[in-house]
């Protein structure tokens, strides 16, 4: 009986394994390859796996039924089927879709996932497809340097879309009553380092019950104390990497300038200007401080502002926390780096048999006409032009769905258009700020306009080592800022740990890559 049971059990399990291993062969229902000019495009289905975004669709509409996707279907001629990933668990769902037979024909990836998928041979080599679609390289979004970011072993596995980073610079802000009491001209403040320290001192004396300066110390940005971004450019450490006179790169965090910057922050702590709970302040707590007006000064990014109109107003005439701007260093250095990067890597998974049709669709998507329509909408419906030729959105609730086009379908952002959106929110665009950096002072320019911090080459030592390096920086800088370690003690400890983590080898690897560009 026992033997019979075991034999029966084994048979059942074997059958299950055999059943699992057979199954539908990968089928594609998406049409034909071959000449794309003679094929009836309406019979070709292109499945696009899009990323989640914030704008919700109108009632009765969805990602495959709205004025924008209908316009794209009409212009391209293809049968487009968009599938939007969930906002949470997107990576998991994408991994499941990639493991299933129902692969999309197009999808947008971040750099890390892109390199991962290339290494796993999930993606189609687009060399031939791009050669057959020369119109792609003729669009205004095509940029040689951005295109080169897609190359892995000399082959493009993606079409890259360019982007600029933050559309508005981070800034030092002041409570309007504090500004009035101290006589600070919020429209043209003196933002030299000495003046800033003097403002802190006077604020502490005049308003002892207020926290002199606060910021989201808990929300570090890749490696530095994020809320002090208004300060870094004054010390020429705004970027992660900077070019030296000999043309190599150096890591800003390990430079004397960074030490000097930390000394400024440490001085703020020693004199009692820094929020005592700085290390625990995250975005919600920062917003709470803003709402309660419990701080005299604060360092904030434009996206730190709470979603409440009583607090969010950034008009210098009426704002509760008017924006003062960025600090100015001893050489006049100021402003915030644009952080040019690649927005998305548009890829075609291996197994798609409509690769060339996908390229044709991208030609439509990158056309001027498509950009205008998707980004702005229709004149008279979603926007109108003012006397200066700038687009002003029309506040008609039924027609402000332009953001759907912007968020789900638009292929790339032109900086000037992003800047206009930022200005409509009341923030100064990053392009309008005064930016004086190494270019003006030392005549040094980066060879690539793409920030290596966001477009790190695929080098093993860099991929493996940078997270630990970033964590090391964040930890030590926070210790120095909050008094947990002395300035020199903390700095030396940081440098020692940086070396022990192989930081010098990483810097050399990145620098060698840069020099080889």
């Amino acid at each position, binding site marked *: 009986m026992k033997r019979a*049971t075991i034999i*029966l*059990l084994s048979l*059942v399990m074997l059958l299950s394994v055999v059943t*699992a291993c057979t*199954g*539908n062969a990968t089928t594609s229902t998406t049409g034909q390859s071959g000449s794309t000019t003679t094929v009836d495009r309406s019979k070709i289905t292109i499945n696009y796996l899009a990323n*989640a975004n*914030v*704008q*919700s*669709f*109108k*009632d*009765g509409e*969805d*990602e495959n039924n709205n004025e924008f996707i209908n316009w794209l279907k009409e212009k391209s001629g293809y049968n487009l089927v968009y*599938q*939007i990933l*969930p*906002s*949470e*668990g997107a990576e*998991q*769902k994408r*991994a*499941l879709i990639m*493991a*299933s*037979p*129902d692969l999309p024909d197009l999808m947008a990836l971040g750099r890390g996932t892109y390199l991962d998928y290339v290494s796993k041979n999930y993606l189609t080599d687009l060399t031939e497809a791009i050669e057959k679609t020369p119109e792609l390289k003729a669009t205004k979004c095509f940029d040689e340097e951005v295109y080169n970011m897609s190359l892995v072993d000399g082959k493009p596995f993606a079409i890259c879309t360019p982007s600029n980073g933050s559309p508005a610079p981070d800034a030092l802000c002041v409570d309007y009553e504090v500004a009035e009491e101290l006589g600070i001209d919020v429209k043209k403040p003196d933002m030299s380092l000495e003046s800033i320290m003097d403002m802190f001192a006077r604020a502490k004396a005049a308003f002892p019950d207020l926290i002199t300066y606060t910021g989201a110390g808990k929300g570090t940005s890749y490696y530095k104390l994020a809320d002090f971004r208004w300060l870094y450019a004054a010390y020429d450490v705004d970027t992660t990497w900077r070019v030296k006179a000999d043309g190599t790169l150096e890591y800003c965090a390990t430079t004397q300038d960074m030490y000097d910057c930390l000394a400024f922050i440490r001085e703020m702590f020693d004199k009692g200007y820094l929020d005592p709970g700085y290390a625990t302040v995250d975005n*919600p707590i920062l*917003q*709470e401080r*803003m*709402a*309660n007006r419990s701080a005299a000064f604060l360092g904030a990014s434009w996206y730190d*502002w*709470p*979603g*409440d*109109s*009583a*607090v*969010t107003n950034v008009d210098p005439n009426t704002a509760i926390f008017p924006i003062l701007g960025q600090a100015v260093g001893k050489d006049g250095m100021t402003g915030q780096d644009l952080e040019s990067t690649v927005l998305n890597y548009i890829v075609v998974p291996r197994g798609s048999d409509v690769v060339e049709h996908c390229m044709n669709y991208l030609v439509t998507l990158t056309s001027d006409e498509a950009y205008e329509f998707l980004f702005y909408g229709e004149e008279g419906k979603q926007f109108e032009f003012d006397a200066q030729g700038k687009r002003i*959105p029309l*506040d*008609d*609730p039924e027609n*402000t769905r332009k*953001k759907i086009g912007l968020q789900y379908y638009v292929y790339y952002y032109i900086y000037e258009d992003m800047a206009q*959106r930022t200005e*409509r*929110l009341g923030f100064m665009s990053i392009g309008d700020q005064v930016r004086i950096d190494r270019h003006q002072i030392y005549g040094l320019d980066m060879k690539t306009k793409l920030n290596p911090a966001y477009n790190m080459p695929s080098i093993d030592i860099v991929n493996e080592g940078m997270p630990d390096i970033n964590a090391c920086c964040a930890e030590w800088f926070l210790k120095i800022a909050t008094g947990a370690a002395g300035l020199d003690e903390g700095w030396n400890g940081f440098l020692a740990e940086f070396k022990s983590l192989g930081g010098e080898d990483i810097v050399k690897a990145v620098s060698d890559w840069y020099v080889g560009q």
Partner: protein
Amino acid sequence: MVSRKSAVRGVRGDRIKTGHFDKILLAVNTVAITLIALICLYPYLNIVAKSFSSSFSVIAGKVNGIWPVEYTAESYQIIFRGSRFFRSTWNTVFVTVIGTLLNLMFTLFVAYAVTRPVMPGKKLIMILYIITMVFGGGLIPTYLTVINAGMRNSLWALIIPSLVSPFNVILMRNFLNGIPYEITESATIDGTDHFRMLAHIIFPLSLPSIATISIFLAVGYWNSFFDAMIYIDARTKQTLQLYLRDIMTNVMQAELSGFLDELAGSLADDSIRGAAIFCSTLPIICVYPFLQKYFVKGVTLGAVKG
């Protein structure tokens, strides 16, 4: 469970004296459990209070108690905006009701079958069930199986793959084993077939077990998020949990422009989160009191009996 009354009176109704120590212990227990209950309840009530408070008071950290500050129902306007909320609620109700009923039905069938003395291979069947409890197929094989069965973008993908839970089968089986065999034997002698046996004898006797399992199932189906996330793409088929999660994530990232989103963008994250939590838990809170007595009895189901 023995009630306090019967403890005082004893099993046979004799009055039993309770000493001072017993009374003190009872009082201390009552106070302690009440405090623990309030501690557990407070965060929930605080979240609900935030959902009914103005965004400014939430951002400023003024909503610390269980009462709203500057009452407003704007968060609920976002949740109930359009027909998506009602459609997703309907989807969730469908999955919960149908899933619970089907699951109960199949669980009862299996448990009944394996408790019949003459059922051949019942040990093997139980072994196979237990194997699936211990060894899972993994996420990707499960996903592929469901997709290949044509259940992608279908609400049935949330019901059929988990139609029979081995744990529930074991629970039910143990309960059914406690029903005296003589009852079913005499029914068989009287000419009852298995379906009538199930309907008229087994089912009424199994109500405590069924109620317990059904509440576990209902809560599980109601809260199901992950399965819905991976199998459901179409917005029209989203469940309530997916919809609410979408709302919370979108509001947290919302820009401060656009008339239709001005409302969403002006609300604090905690307000929306509170409204979402309240909406998703309210139905279960409404149903639970009616099933509580069965739940209390049922938690000891399947325990070793003397």
